[in-house]
């Protein structure tokens, strides 16, 4: 299963701005609320998760998601991708791409593993940082095998 199935085109924003990490997380959470994937309390759970341990992944990418306690607010597993071209300070790192995760159960772990595998390729990570359209982002996060199947 590719995480692209979880990525709704409406959940991709390529030109966001946030003055700080908290604002970026709120924006991410709001997109998940807007697409009906989570209830509003999930945003607080995302802020708490970030406070207890940073979700900075490396390569300019952070993956905000809720705490275990916040899972009750998740209606369905989903991703949101928000790009911050000006960058957001993330505990000393500079984040330009947020991939917000909503997942019940342990679903986020499989999603995370797949994202980490994609981003472990520096060329793919760079392409994600430079992507300017929703199509580019969907293409990048879609594993090759699935692209062939859907072609």
């Amino acid at each position, binding site marked *: 299963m590719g995480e692209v199935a979880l990525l709704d085109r409406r959940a991709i924003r390529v030109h966001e701005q946030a003055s700080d990490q908290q604002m970026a997380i709120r924006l991410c959470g709001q997109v998940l609320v807007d697409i009906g994937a989570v209830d509003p309390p999930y945003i607080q759970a995302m802020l708490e998760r970030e406070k207890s341990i940073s979700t900075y992944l490396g*390569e300019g990418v952070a993956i905000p998601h809720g705490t275990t306690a916040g899972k009750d607010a998740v209606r369905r597993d989903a991703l949101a991708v928000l790009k911050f071209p000006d960058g957001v300070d993330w505990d000393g790192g500079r984040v330009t791409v947020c991939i917000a995760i909503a997942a019940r159960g342990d679903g986020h772990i499989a999603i995370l593993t797949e994202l980490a595998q994609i981003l472990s390729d520096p060329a793919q990570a760079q392409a994600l940082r430079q992507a300017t359209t929703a199509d580019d982002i969907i293409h990048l996060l879609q594993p090759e095998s699935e692209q062939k199947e859907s072609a």
Partner: protein
Amino acid sequence: MPQRTVIIGSSQGLHARPAKLLVEAAARQPVQVLLSIGDGRPVRADSMLSVLSLGAVAGSTVTLHAEDADGAERALEELATLIAADLDAPDPAVPGATDA
């Protein structure tokens, strides 16, 4: 290359706090340490992305590979102990566990 095999003790596997603690501890070692699962390609233990890309769940067996140099055995010992522990339980006895 000195190696050590260890079973993951954290209930979340190598994710979130357990992964972060491992990456930080690996970065402090004087030698380069790699981590692999099964026949998989070894990845850097001091990179969050690499460690997460393993998808290591609780109870799976991982192998630590240290660069053959001074401090290798000690590095393997420290990291193996960390991986075998239940790092999900916030425990003040674990160095760094209370770090935000």
